[in-house]
């Protein structure tokens, strides 16, 4: 649905005193960690920055704290709404419950929410991603890169969302070669979210996987992921990043070992949502950012991925065509 | 008590014995030392005043202590003895006055300063860490080291030397926790000697000791004296004081009353100087013993966690109106026997019956509900909630009984009313019943406990050291209450380290040794020396040997 047809410039009905840019007040409610978390929230922030290139944006960004109640989340959204921000983007499905309570009170404000499509309200748009599809593709890459027919997956916290990554990855690996072994580990269980912030533990788990025969390990563990990259560099084995292209942010000694990353276009989603809304193209319901829509994908910045690209593209085409349906649960 | 008290200067020696009310002729100490060099004076306290919030604990005190003397200080509970000694030991600074040690004026800001000039103190309450060894307790603060490392061998050697030369019999490597009170007392003394103290302060060192141990201690003191050490000695036991001291200073209500020569004063006169009253004598009047056995203990055995029989096949009958005394050196199973009777320790075998009912399987609370009163040995650990107000302490141990409770509820009104009754009847000196128990002096805490345990007509009273550390006035009151209750048919088990109390207050007297009842003596014709001998197993008492 909403694709890359960015509203370039003021679009219709520009009220701007500025010649080209329309002024919008965008409110962002981050999940725990907020801007600067070098992960999910930062991707959203990047989307906001992108939107700034085209729009004259006043932003207000608030973030959640660990262990807060639904009501505190609702208050955060209300705070933004009453301060006149419109649209408001809630980053993370943890806001689903509070949004359901707040949105009806502000029928004239448009809300976007990442990773949730449960809302049927007329002023809420859910922005969800096919993480399983991007994970499938990096699974295909891993299956080709492994020499020992043994790969690994590290999940930060065992939640349905992270299991979606696991399911797609395993399916991708098996699609190439069903005999490849997939080791799976989660660092913690919800509501113990320490698994997203424990690089030491991720390092130990990754070392265990490499020692246990794996030579490619994929993580969906947020801030713990750096532990995987360290282990990979130390063991001279391969690792796969998540969400953003982690090859770009890795240290020089780790770079050679980062095969690829499963990309999740939270930035694109936020960017599009803001621009579409500014262009008067807000649509209630939900948008799914999948391979087809270009909302997810895999990174190719490390040249060592090149030999495997053909096959990956092959599978990608099949998924887009619908001949392969990627599972969402392991 | 006594208004219009005349405070006098203690030095030069008081020549006006009439200053003390009751004016008996008290010979004044003559100080041969006075004619000697000034350096013969070890300690001189002059004009010492120490105030606490609302209390003047010491007021214008003057004491001169000769080198090589045992100088006793006596006074009733709260007279200010400990406060004065703590001042001398640098634990707090006096508000006024000067301290001179060995002719030099000193000003201490911590015990370390006092230790440095050769003063050592054995405190009224033990200052020992249970979980450390004797050696560690002794060397603490004055550790011999070699290259920073604790030199255990040197320390051990030095402790053994001290122990041998003063006959202290100390084993440096035991945990203090495992020691009885007598040993603890000796460890305290050794601690002081280890630091090379030449001036020793002993604050009520004998309160917990039996006569033999007291003799031992006095032997040690004489030993020290002959080495030229000076001893300041506090005690409530006046005969002891008379036997060991070279000089006695009486303190009353914070100030020195008089310094006297022990050779020319009697215990009675001392008591009068202290409190202005007669020395109370523990004694029972006519026998009230009945035929009805109230508490019967048969073949009771209790084992320690290590499996040893700490109470070994003990049988005991206490009739209504009878006080059964139990004599024994501390640590011979008295505490365990009491705790077994109270249901605080599991019994291995044997029966305990109360008024004919077997109570062996009952819980402590049931026993108490059925009329067993309990005055514990350690009042602060077992008898009181120090931070709770007096009226809550009235409830403690009787929290299922009227008037404290009505059904499920605490009856605050009634409990407070009854607390007031106890405070009045037992002369507990307190400004009110809502102050915390900790703010009462030890003697008054004890009176509260005695009053509580005697409320509600108990059938049996287990009284462990009911007058320990209590001054002569309070002692008399407690004895009187015991006598009255006995006359009303109370059965009492009395345990005490004070042999005069045991002999005077018991209808029947038994001796416990290594967990066994070894003999029964007739309290009417036994001396404390004989009893003491029986307690140590040195020989059975000839008189009244019964089974």
């Amino acid at each position, binding site marked *: 649905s909403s694709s890359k047809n960015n509203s370039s410039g003021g679009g219709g009905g520009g009220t701007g005193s500025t010649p080209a840019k329309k002024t919008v007040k965008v409110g962002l409610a981050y999940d725990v960690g907020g801007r600067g978390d070098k992960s999910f929230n930062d991707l959203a922030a990047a989307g906001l920055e992108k939107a700034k290139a085209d729009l004259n944006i006043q932003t207000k960004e608030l973030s959640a704290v660990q262990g807060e109640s639904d009501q505190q989340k609702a208050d955060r959204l209300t705070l933004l709404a009453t301060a006149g921000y419109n649209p408001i983007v809630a980053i993370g499905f943890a806001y689903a419950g509070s949004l359901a309570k707040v949105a009806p009170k502000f029928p004239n404000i448009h809300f976007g929410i990442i990773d949730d499509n449960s809302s049927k309200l007329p002023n809420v748009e859910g922005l969800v991603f096919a993480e399983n599809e991007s994970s499938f593709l990096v699974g295909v890459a891993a299956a080709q890169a492994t020499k020992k027919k043994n790969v690994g997956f590290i999940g930060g916290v065992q939640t349905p969302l992270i299991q979606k990554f696991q399911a797609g990855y395993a399916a991708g690996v098996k699609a190439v070669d069903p005999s490849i072994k997939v080791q799976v580990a989660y660092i913690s269980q919800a509501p113990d979210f320490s698994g997203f912030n424990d690089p030491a533990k991720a390092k130990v788990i990754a070392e265990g996987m490499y020692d246990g025969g794996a030579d490619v390990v994929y993580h969906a563990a947020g801030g713990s992921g750096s532990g995987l990259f360290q282990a990979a560099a130390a063991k001279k084995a391969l690792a796969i990043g998540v969400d953003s292209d982690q090859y770009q942010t890795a240290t020089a000694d780790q770079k050679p070992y980062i095969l690829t990353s499963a990309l999740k276009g939270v930035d694109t989603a936020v960017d599009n949502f803001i621009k579409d809304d500014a262009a008067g193209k807000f649509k209630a319901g939900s948008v799914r950012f999948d391979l087809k829509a270009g909302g997810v994908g895999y990174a190719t910045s490390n040249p060592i991925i090149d030999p495997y690209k053909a096959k990956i593209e092959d599978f990608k085409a099949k998924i887009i065509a619908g001949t392969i349906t990627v599972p969402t649960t392991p | 008590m006594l208004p219009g008290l005349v405070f006098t200067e203690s030095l030069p020696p008081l020549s006006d014995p009439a200053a003390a009310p009751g004016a008996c002729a008290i010979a004044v100490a003559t100080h041969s030392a006075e004619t000697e060099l000034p350096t013969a004076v070890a300690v001189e306290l002059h004009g010492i005043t120490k105030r*606490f919030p609302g209390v003047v604990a010491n007021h214008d005190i003057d004491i001169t202590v000769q080198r090589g003397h045992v100088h006793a200080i006596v006074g009733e509970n709260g*007279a200010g003895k400990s406060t004065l000694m703590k001042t001398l030991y640098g634990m707090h600074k006096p508000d006024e006055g000067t301290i001179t040690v060995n002719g030099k004026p000193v000003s201490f800001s911590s015990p370390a300063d006092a230790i440095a000039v050769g003063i050592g103190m054995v405190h009224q309450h033990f200052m020992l860490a249970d979980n450390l060894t004797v050696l560690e307790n002794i060397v603490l603060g004055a550790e011999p080291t070699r290259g920073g490392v604790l030199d255990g061998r040197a320390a051990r050697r030095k402790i053994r030397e001290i122990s041998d030369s003063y006959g202290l019999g100390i084993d440096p490597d035991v945990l203090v926790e495992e020691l009885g009170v007598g040993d603890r007392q000796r460890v305290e003394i050794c601690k002081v000697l280890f630091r090379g103290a030449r001036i020793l302060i002993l604050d009520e060192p004998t309160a917990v000791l039996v006569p033999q141990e007291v003799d031992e201690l006095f032997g040690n003191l004489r030993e020290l004296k002959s080495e030229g050490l000076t001893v300041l000695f506090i005690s409530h036991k006046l005969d002891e004081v008379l036997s060991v001291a070279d000089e006695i200073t009486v303190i009353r209500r914070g100030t020195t009353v008089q310094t006297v020569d022990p050779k020319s004063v009697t215990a009675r006169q001392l008591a009068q100087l202290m409190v202005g009253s007669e020395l109370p004598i523990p004694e029972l009047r006519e026998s009230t013993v009945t035929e009805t056995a109230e508490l019967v203990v048969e073949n009771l055995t209790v084992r320690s966690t290590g499996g040893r029989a700490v109470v070994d096949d003990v049988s005991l009958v206490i009739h209504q109106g009878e006080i059964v005394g139990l004599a024994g050196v501390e640590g011979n199973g008295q505490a365990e026997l009491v705790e077994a009777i109270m249901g605080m320790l599991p019994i291995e075998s044997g029966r305990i019956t109360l008024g004919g009912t077997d109570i062996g399987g009952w819980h402590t609370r049931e026993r108490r509900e059925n009329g067993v009163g309990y005055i514990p040995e350690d009042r602060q650990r077992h008898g009181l909630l120090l931070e709770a107000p007096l009226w809550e302490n009235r409830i403690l141990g009787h929290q299922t009984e009227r008037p404290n409770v009505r059904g499920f509820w605490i009856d605050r009104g009634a409990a407070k009313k009854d607390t007031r009754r106890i405070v009045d009847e037992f002369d507990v000196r307190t400004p009110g019943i809502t102050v915390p128990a900790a703010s009462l002096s030890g003697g008054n805490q004890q009176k509260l406990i005695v009053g509580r345990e005697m409320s509600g007509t108990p059938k049996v009273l287990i009284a462990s050291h009911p007058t320990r550390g209590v001054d002569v006035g309070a002692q008399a009151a407690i004895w009187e209450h015991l006598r009255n209750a006995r006359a009303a048919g109370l059965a009492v088990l009395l345990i005490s380290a004070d042999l005069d109390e045991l002999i005077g207050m018991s209808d029947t007297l038994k001796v416990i040794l290594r967990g066994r009842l070894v003999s029964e003596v007739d309290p009417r014709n036994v001396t404390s020396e004989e009893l003491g001998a029986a307690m140590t197993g040195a020989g059975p008492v000839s008189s009244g040997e019964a089974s």
Partner: protein
Amino acid sequence: MRERLSRLLLNVFAAVIAAAFAAGITSIILAVRGDSPTFVISQMWTYGTTPSSELTILNSATVYYLSAIAVAIGFRMNLFNIGVDGQYRLAAMLAAAFGGAVSLPNGVRQVAIILVAMLVGASWAGLVALLKVTRGVSEVISTIMLNFIATGLIAYLMRPSILGRRSAVANDVTTTPIPKSGQVGGLDLIPKAGGKVYGLIVLAVIVGVLFHVVVNRTRFGFDLRATGQSASAAAASGVNVKKMIVATLLLSGACAGLVGMPALLGDSHAYSSITFQTGLGFTGIAIALLGRNNPVGIAFAAILWAFLDQSAQILDLNGIPKEIVQITQGVVVLSVVVAYELVRRWALAHQQRVVGGALAPPSDPAAATPAQVTA
């Protein structure tokens, strides 16, 4: 009564000193960073006192209160129940599953759910008691361990094949939602707040009153406090200390079980490991001690805590890092307890003076008073 009044005044005085001190420290930090302290404080006050903030504060405080009472029950007996966190999470989860599964008439259902929560909380705490009285395991360790184990157990039980329900649309696993007939409606206590106060705030009040009555007015409470003040004296007085440990932990756990109820029955209606509020057990520890384990004190502490939580939200909006408030919270706790302590010392000295005066020194220093216990 006069005594009580003066004690109350003293505590108020302490609180004022503490607040001033905390404000001072925070001001310094703010000033270093170049923000105006007065601006921040006035912002926080303004936002914290809006009706909708008041609503959130009251609701948060309700939950904090229950948690702190659960902790305080243990503290009153010298037991350190760090395990409230695990207890309430497990209780909320199982009670939610129960509430979603059974059908009972309205009214009965809510009560049944609450009872299940209390039962679960008590059982999880009972494990601690069992380990302590039979095996001598320190409750500090066992509760820390059991908090983590509860997480694993909840995750296991929340498997879609067991008690969980995977949402078709959202990325969440929840228990079956409790239908209307099992929910507890809110109260319209604050006009214009745009929401309702948890109906179970009533439960919190009842728990507070019960806590006070049971602890201070009953035999059981006396035994509990006695054991807390001196286990040896309590044992000698006939209290069965082991039984008391079990009873206290069961009660504490049952109370912990209630912590999740206001939100479950009044708001979320289902348990989700991901969105259900966590960490309340730890907040409870701080609040219990801040409120000095006293039901009224805890109420004030809970409200203060909730106020700081809530009013901090506004700082983000003004570009001031919110973590400043976390620092403030830490400082507030410290300065409040320091002020209490200073006032307590002052009161003690004062009491000594009074007692000393009542006994008219120096005529009889013997019975005078100090409250410090000699070692």
